[in-house]
């Protein structure tokens, strides 16, 4: 089974450094300044809070419902008015028809005439009382109708007066009857037309009342859909984005969040808080890196002391021999002893130099470097561990390897971590393979192989996590690989681990080439 893992996940495209409109161009390397600029970029946008948008859309819906309620009430009032009107007109019509029924008998008795007259007066009263309502419905027919009714009443009054004179009986002359009939018919026609018209407009109102709610439901549906869409966009998209941020933070990418939209809302406040947290995390991480370096130095101290005491001892006893035997030694012997002292001194100073290189405070300068030199000096530092564990080195780094861009001490720390991991993976000895070459993409890659037990597929994704260790307490901090990967990433490189259970593990470190002048 062969598996690969790598520490860095892809970062969301809109995430870091989107806000380029920074007020000051200076001092970008200062983390506090970087934080200040990121926060400024986030906060300088126009605010359009989600709460505001929520309230606005709810008010819009509310307003729409209110408008509908008012319209419905209005419609109802109109319908009621029309119904009343219709009733009035029908009553009028009814009176007229009743009068006509009496007339049809030809001769009206005194009491009949009184009744007809009363009916006609009644109709006229009603008519005057409801003028305003009728006027609203029919402006043109009204005077004509009023004229007909007036004629009608006058005729009847005249007939009644004649009847009384004649002793109780009122008889209509044929002309009178014709006039009366004409007025009646005209009034009746007008009223019937009015009734028809009112019926039509009333049914139109009812139709409107029937379709209005359906229209409202439709409009509300559209409105809700639009609001839902807008809010889903305003909520889901930022949440997705933040998911991306958390996953890249989880793998140790602490670059600050920049603005991704043109306005700011509650999520921008969250971004500001997350940036604050990132800055704190970064600071903590930097402290950890420094601490991890000290820890590695600590575990190396015994090895270094041993390494250093051996050449010192050789020098000391050789010098002693020279002093004690100065008279008996041949020139050749003396030369050999002096040579021993010379080379052992060299050896001791090499050890001191690599130790100094390792602990010296970083200037963080990116310079072109010979990878081979760095690897060799680091191998020398781990020589003691290798001796103890019976590990031998298979070194295959071509001397003409192109130079890479990096910081020597940081790279030494990375390789020391990798070598120690490999050595510790082979407690009963084996071969530590170190090879390097130029890869297709132009970078220089180093492979550190061991013949250890390998890493199970389920732990492989976790080995870059800070504090993940399978070693006994006190033996491993679990910071080695996490620190190494953050260093390699800072140098613009890439680190990957492949492992085969029972066969061994290979770490691939790739670094960008230095620009050669």
């Amino acid at each position, binding site marked *: 089974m062969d598996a690969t893992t790598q520490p860095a996940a892809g970062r969301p495209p809109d995430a870091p450094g989107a806000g380029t409109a920074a007020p000051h161009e200076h001092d970008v390397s200062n983390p506090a300044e970087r934080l200040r600029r990121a926060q400024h970029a986030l906060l300088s946008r126009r605010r359009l809070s989600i709460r505001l948008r929520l309230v606005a859309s709810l008010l819009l819906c509310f307003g729409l419902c209110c408008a509908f309620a008012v319209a419905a009430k209005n419609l109802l009032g109109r319908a009621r008015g029309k119904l009343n009107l219709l009733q009035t007109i029908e009553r009028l019509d009814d009176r007229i028809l009743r009068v006509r029924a009496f007339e049809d008998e030809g001769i009206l008795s005194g009491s009949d005439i009184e009744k007809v007259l009363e009916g006609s007066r009644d109709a006229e009263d009603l008519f005057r009382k409801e003028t305003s309502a009728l006027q609203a419905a029919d402006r043109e027919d009204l005077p004509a109708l009023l004229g007909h009714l007036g004629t009608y009443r006058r005729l009847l009054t005249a007939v009644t007066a004649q009847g009384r004179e004649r002793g109780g009986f009122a008889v209509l002359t044929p002309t009178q009857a014709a006039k009366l009939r004409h007025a009646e018919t005209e009034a009746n026609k007008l009223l019937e037309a009015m009734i028809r018209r009112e019926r039509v407009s009333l049914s139109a109102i009812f139709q409107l009342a029937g379709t209005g709610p359906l229209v409202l439901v439709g409009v509300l549906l559209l409105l809700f859909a639009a609001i839902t869409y807008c809010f889903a966009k305003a909520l889901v998209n930022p949440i997705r984005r933040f998911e991306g941020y958390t996953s890249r933070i989880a793998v140790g990418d602490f670059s600050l969040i920049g603005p991704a939209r043109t306005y700011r809302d509650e999520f921008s406040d969250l971004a500001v808080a997350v940036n604050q947290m990132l800055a704190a995390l970064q600071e903590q991480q930097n402290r950890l890196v420094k601490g991890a370096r000290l820890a590695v130095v600590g575990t190396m101290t015994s090895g270094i002391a*041993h390494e250093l005491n051996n050449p*010192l001892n050789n020098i000391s*006893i050789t010098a*002693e021999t020279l002093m004690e035997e100065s008279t008996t030694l041949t020139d050749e012997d003396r030369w050999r002893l002096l040579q021993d002292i010379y080379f*052992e001194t060299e050896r001791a100073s090499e050890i001191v130099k690599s130790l100094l290189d390792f602990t010296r405070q970083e200037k963080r300068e990116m310079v072109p470097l010979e990878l081979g030199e760095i690897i060799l000096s680091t191998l020398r530092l781990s020589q003691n561990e290798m001796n103890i564990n019976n590990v031998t080195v298979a070194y295959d780094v071509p001397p003409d390897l192109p130079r890479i861009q990096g910081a020597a001490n940081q790279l030494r720390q990375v390789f020391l971590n990798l070598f120690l991991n490999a050595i510790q993976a082979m407690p009963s000895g084996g071969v530590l393979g170190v090879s390097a070459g130029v890869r297709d993409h132009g970078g220089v890659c180093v492979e550190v192989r061991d013949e250890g037990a390998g890493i199970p597929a389920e732990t492989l994704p976790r080995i870059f996590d800070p504090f993940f260790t399978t070693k006994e307490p006190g033996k491993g901090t679990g910071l080695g690989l996490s620190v190494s990967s953050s260093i390699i990433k800072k140098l613009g490189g890439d680190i990957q681990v492949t492992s085969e259970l029972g066969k061994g593990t290979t770490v691939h470190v790739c670094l960008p080439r230095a620009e050669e002048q």
Partner: protein
Amino acid sequence: MPDHTNVMVLDDEPIVGDRLRPALAKGGFDVEVFTDSAAAIERLKQKSFGVLVTDMKMRGPSGMDVLRFVREHAPNTQVIVITGYATIETSHEANALGAYQFVAKPFKMRELVKLVEKASKLTVS
């Protein structure tokens, strides 16, 4: 009975053997020098030594392993342990295993020769 003048020097630093051989020979000892601990153990199986001077940290069997072997197979051999880096634990362990002396590097050759002489006398009595 081991010949008390037989001394073995075991250290993977060749210079240590080179310097100790003539110095001890001058004191009247028969000296055999080894830089490989496995070969030294083989030799210890064949020949008895009065004194063994061994380094602690070596590739292959360590000084502690050699000491353990000697305690089991050649209990009369006195063992002087030299080491580049002495911790309390290792010196305790060496003492518990019956090492004659624990010497830290860098040592004075004259003192080491004296120690070997004392240890070899212990073997005789």
